[in-house]
């Protein structure tokens, strides 16, 4: 297509978010002769940039300094906008995340661009980009054509493979000037959320247990998995009734209605009163010893297994995965 493409590399806990590194693959396809550049913003920008530069970015811009120490929509939007100008790019790629959802539309509006959020498929059609993205609470997919001009795409992580290492590109700091408008908001603090206190109704990942967990103590294995996934623990009414979990954790018709992206039901039978509260979940995993349990009728993935054995193994696997993407 012959355009310059900028990839926003999101920094998460001092590391590059895997989903954003993967976009260097897409960037190379779109650029087709144009330049692929990347921008990293935040305190760890330099270290991250060094890694990213090996994966196909001709130039990596780093933005550091006090205003960027913590994420803030106004400052980050300004940094990325200036990186776009610096790179003379007409396509901006970001990984879908709470952060990119928060500032990318600002960049797009400022650059008078067209935008597509959370793309799950991207195709190059001459000068245009054809993307697919979910709509209607992920029930349908829409195919959208984005003709020329400036385009901003956020792409679902794991849609592309990360590129292999090659000749490293250059890494250079970009100095970003903020204007008065950019000071209208600032981030005061950023604390890790999750843990026991996380509200199920707000969580994006929920690990739910039923009365088959038998003791409050046993719920720890669910909490560990939930923590690893930045999620919350939920419970069936039977578990709440038995005093294993407090009522605010109850998911169901007469408890909380939840719509997480991932719902892992462990030893949950799947009574209709329970289903009524979690039907809106995007992906449901059911773990149950009884293969006729109704929960499997509602699940995307099912495991006929003892939760006490399986859940810790899953936690281990997830930990491995998170370690690997570092």
């Amino acid at each position, binding site marked *: 297509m012959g355009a310059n493409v900028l990839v926003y590399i999101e920094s998460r806990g001092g590391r590059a978010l895997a989903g954003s590194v993967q976009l260097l693959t897409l960037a190379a396809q779109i650029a087709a002769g144009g330049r692929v550049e990347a921008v990293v913003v935040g305190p760890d920008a330099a270290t991250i940039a060094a890694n990213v530069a090996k994966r196909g970015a001709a130039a990596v811009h780093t933005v550091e300094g006090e205003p960027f120490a913590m994420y803030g929509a106004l400052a980050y939007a300004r940094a990325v906008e200036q990186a776009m100008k610096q790179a003379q790019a007409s396509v901006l790629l970001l990984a879908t995340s709470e952060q990119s959802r928060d500032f990318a539309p*600002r960049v797009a509006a400022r650059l008078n*661009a067209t935008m597509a*959020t959370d793309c799950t498929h991207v195709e190059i059609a001459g000068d245009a980009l*054809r993307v697919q993205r979910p709509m209607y609470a992920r029930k349908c997919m829409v*195919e959208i054509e984005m003709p020329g001009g400036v385009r901003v795409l956020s792409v679902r992580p794991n849609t592309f493979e990360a590129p292999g290492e090659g000749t490293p590109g250059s890494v250079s700091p970009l100095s970003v000037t903020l204007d008065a408008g950019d000071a209208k908001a600032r981030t005061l603090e950023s604390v*890790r959320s999750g843990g026991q206190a996380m509200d199920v109704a707000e969580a994006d990942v929920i690990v739910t247990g039923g009365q088959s967990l038998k003791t409050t103590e046993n719920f720890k294995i669910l909490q560990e998995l939930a923590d690893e996934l*930045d999620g919350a623990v939920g419970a069936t009414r039977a578990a709440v009734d038995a005093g294993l979990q407090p009522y605010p954790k109850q998911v169901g018709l007469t408890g909380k209605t939840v719509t997480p992206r991932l719902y892992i039901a462990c030893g949950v039978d799947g009574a209709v009163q329970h289903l009524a509260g979690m039907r809106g979940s995007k992906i449901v995993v059911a773990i149950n010893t009884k293969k006729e349990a109704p929960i499997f009728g509602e699940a995307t993935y*099912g495991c006929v297994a003892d939760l006490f054995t399986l859940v810790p193994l*899953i936690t281990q696997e997830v930990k491995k995965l998170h370690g690997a993407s570092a």
Partner: protein
Amino acid sequence: MRVLVIARTVPDSRATIRVNASGGAIETTGVAMICDPFDELGVEQGVRLREGRPDVTEAVVMSAGPGPATPQDQALRAALAMGIDRGIYVHGDLVTPPARYDELLLARVLAAAIKAEEAKNGEFALILCGKAAIDTDAGELGPALGELLNRPSIGAATKIEIGADAKSLKATRRGDGVSEAIEASLPAVVSCEKGLAEPRFASLPNIMKAKKKPVEMVSAADLPGLAGIKATTKVVKLSPPAPRAPCKMLAGEPAQMASELVRLLRSEAKVI
């Protein structure tokens, strides 16, 4: 201090989504339409401010859609029944699918409508909307409005507190595995996330009263500054939801199951 809430009418999340004959939008006949559940959080927050603070003089709701012949816009009805004072309904092809699926375009039209309203009646100290509407799943509206109106925007807010002087606000927003505390000056735009304020259920008398609250009709095409504007993205087609696949049962020893499950969640479902 005035508050504006953006509320969008969307199909009920339980409804079966069917694609219309042209393939460019969904079938809306026979589909229950509701006020977007995320926008409802903003409505609740707006009503609470209106009820709780004497300096909040008006809470207005703005919705957009086909129009003006539509009998009653569900989002407006719901918001007015919950306690918002009056409504503004922006109508026209620009804000109707398929153009509506371009959320940046929607932001541009609504920004123009907001500017027009503010020119008449004064500035909105706070503009609230849902973090993402359940029809477009995009979530671009709030931050884009912030940009277009040159105001700070706070996405995915789970808590907001307006300062006593009505000049600033403190918010908590949900980031990726973190929760961020933010301070911003007013006027500002806030996108609301679950947990912000449990929306109330309107009582029957309030639903009836809402029918009598004033709703101003605004034609999108007539808004200043929008001449010649059109959608820049093109909807090629909307594919109907795939029939829900039966549960994929994983086989093998627990250890195999665990690694296979994690692999599927990562590369097939893309949720972790």
